[in-house]
């Protein structure tokens, strides 16, 4: 092999060619803007939805006026619609399992009497939290509504009990989704999955397209180096990734009011790293794949575990150990923690470092595999 130095001029040439081609490819361009907007709007409804009149079953062992007041207040708030009364725990369980009831409110025996005595009776709410966005708001509002209603009632007869503290103990059991993934998790998750999907797919197609159209032969006949071609082709997509991210953040902050507690430049730096990791994977896929279809299949093959094992779909800590181990190899897993950390907790670089280096290592490993597979000949 004769030694040949990296040429910036060639690199710029490859980059600008890719830009021009991208500019002329309307469909791809539409996809790049369309996918995030569409997804956000779809998921946005889930985030924004403030579901009301949720079917609720009541298991009441107490029929005091306090119980009645409580149930009436819940009904009046609009969140709960008491659809049936059940007489046993088993019956309630079955309603939840079949999704006929979203909530079961259990009022214990002597609820009224204990309340008056100041014994803080337990009010148990079981929620089907498999779709946390459906139950989140109702649960959040519950304590307020219940104690407000009871306070008014108690003020009438026993004013001294109406303190700042609720006169009962509210116990919420989130069934099926103990971690109670909230709406805020969706924006980082969406950001990560959209980037994973589009970045890998776009670049995955970039090289295989050259091969399918026969232009690869021309490219190969020039002195362009594999590293110049691979990295030069990546740059335009980094820009596209940043556009997508800005779109998503814009929606997240304005429309869905996701808080932003951390440092915005830091967030963008993390996003850039994540984009770069996905792009190197995409370009590596496209050096391995023989045609665009194969590149597409590889993308989906990678995309599925990314969604399932990263903590986007299922709570990461709830997964078996082997799945956590696999998941920790994926950039998306770390990216989710990073974005949540910055946006919701206001984390800084110190706290984030343990999630940053795995992405960087992933990227280095992937690009060296890709360079190994890059075909220098037509063989």
């Amino acid at each position, binding site marked *: 092999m004769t030694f040949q130095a990296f040429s910036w*001029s060639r690199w710029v040439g490859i980059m600008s*060619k890719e830009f*021009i081609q991208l500019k002329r490819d309307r469909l791809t361009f539409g996809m790049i803007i369309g996918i995030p907007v569409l997804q956000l709007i779809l998921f946005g409804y889930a985030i924004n939805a403030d579901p009301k009149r949720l079917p609720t079953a009541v298991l009441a062992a107490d029929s005091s006026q306090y119980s009645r007041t409580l149930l009436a207040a819940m009904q009046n708030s609009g969140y709960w619609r008491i659809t049936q009364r059940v007489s046993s725990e088993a019956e309630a369980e079955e309603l939840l399992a079949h999704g006929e009831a979203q909530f079961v409110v259990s009022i214990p025996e002597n609820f009224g009497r204990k309340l008056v005595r100041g014994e803080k009776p337990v009010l148990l709410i079981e929620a089907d939290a498999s779709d946390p966005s459906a139950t989140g708001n109702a649960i959040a509002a519950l304590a307020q509504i219940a104690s407000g209603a009871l306070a008014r009632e108690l003020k009438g007869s026993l004013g001294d009990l109406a303190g700042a503290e609720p006169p009962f103990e509210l116990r919420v059991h989130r069934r099926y989704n103990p971690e109670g993934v909230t709406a805020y998790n969706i924006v980082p998750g969406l950001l990560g999955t959209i980037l994973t999907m589009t970045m890998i797919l776009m670049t995955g197609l970039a090289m295989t397209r050259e091969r399918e159209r026969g232009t690869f*032969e021309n*490219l190969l006949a020039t002195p362009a180096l594999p590293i110049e071609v691979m990295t030069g082709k990546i740059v335009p997509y980094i820009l596209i990734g940043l556009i997508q991210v800005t779109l998503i953040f814009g929606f997240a902050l304005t429309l869905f009011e996701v808080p932003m507690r951390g440092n915005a430049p830091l967030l963008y730096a993390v996003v850039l790293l994540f984009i770069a990791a996905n792009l190197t994977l995409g370009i590596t896929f496209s050096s391995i794949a023989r045609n665009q279809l194969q590149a597409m299949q590889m993308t989906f093959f990678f995309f599925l575990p990314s969604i399932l094992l990263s903590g986007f779909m299922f709570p990461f800590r709830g997964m078996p150990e082997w799945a956590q181990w696999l998941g920790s190899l994926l950039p998306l897993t770390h990216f989710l923690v990073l974005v949540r950390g910055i946006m919701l907790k206001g984390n800084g670089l110190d706290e984030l470092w343990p999630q940053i280096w795995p992405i960087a290592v992933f990227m280095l490993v992937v690009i060296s595999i890709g360079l190994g597979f890059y075909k220098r000949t037509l063989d």
Partner: protein
Amino acid sequence: MTDLAIDVHGLNKSFGDKHVVKDFALQVRRGEIYGFLGPNGSGKTTSIRMLCGLLRPDSGSGTCLGHDVIRQTGAIKREVGYMTQRFSLWEDLTIRENLEFVARMYGMKDRRAAVGHALAELGLAERRDQLAGTLSGGWKQRLALAACMLHRPRLLLLDEPTAGVDPQARRDFWEEIHALAATGISVLVATHYMDEAERCHRLAYIADGRLLAKGTPDEVLHLFHLSTWAVSGTPAQLSALAAKLKHVPEICHVTAFGNTLHVMGEEDAALERAIAPFRDEPGIDWRRADPTLEDVFLHLMQGAPDNLQ
């Protein structure tokens, strides 16, 4: 540096268990126009790709412009202009963008001037902002040629550069090639056209992956002691005659050329005896003729059937 632009020996290439190029050896001198002929699927493209580092030979060795064809492909790529058989520039780039991209890939300093010059030279200047994909076949060909000559290579490898190009454009093209050769540039050109073969300094004929003949057009013409007769008559007479002659064992070939038939055999006396019964037909004129390159290639090809790609 030697006088040879291409000097390779014993190149072999297989795809799977298909032995596509067998013991390929070729010497092309500086400033020489070397024609590369052979039926479809005979291994021309594969051989050319091995010469410019796009395919790695399974075995064999040699040099291209003094650089090793196996180890110094980078250096070869910088100095060789390769025109692919199929149009392989970027159809979604304009003519100018394509040329500029190619110029950049070769790290040309005077990029703008070179592109402008190439556009003017090839009469593409006013179409420079047209997408390459919207060009007609002939124009695509011209663009591809301009692109592969942009970096002023010392060796041109042209894979069927004039396929589907009109006669005027072909004539222009060959004039250009001869002008380039006069400046010392070497050219290896694959073609199917006999008139083009005649315009080459040297020829090689490949069939089924094996080089069957090499030499100047004149040497190739006299490779065999072919004796040829030209027969003229009305079209109906000629086609009836051709049908009959095909079954005569002494006759190797009967080829129709417009209003004449070429009848060819390997032994003059035997051929003369064999055609004797047909010579008295009224209205048909038999005359001795010189064999053409086409006659020779047809003869060479007899043992090597056309491999479809």
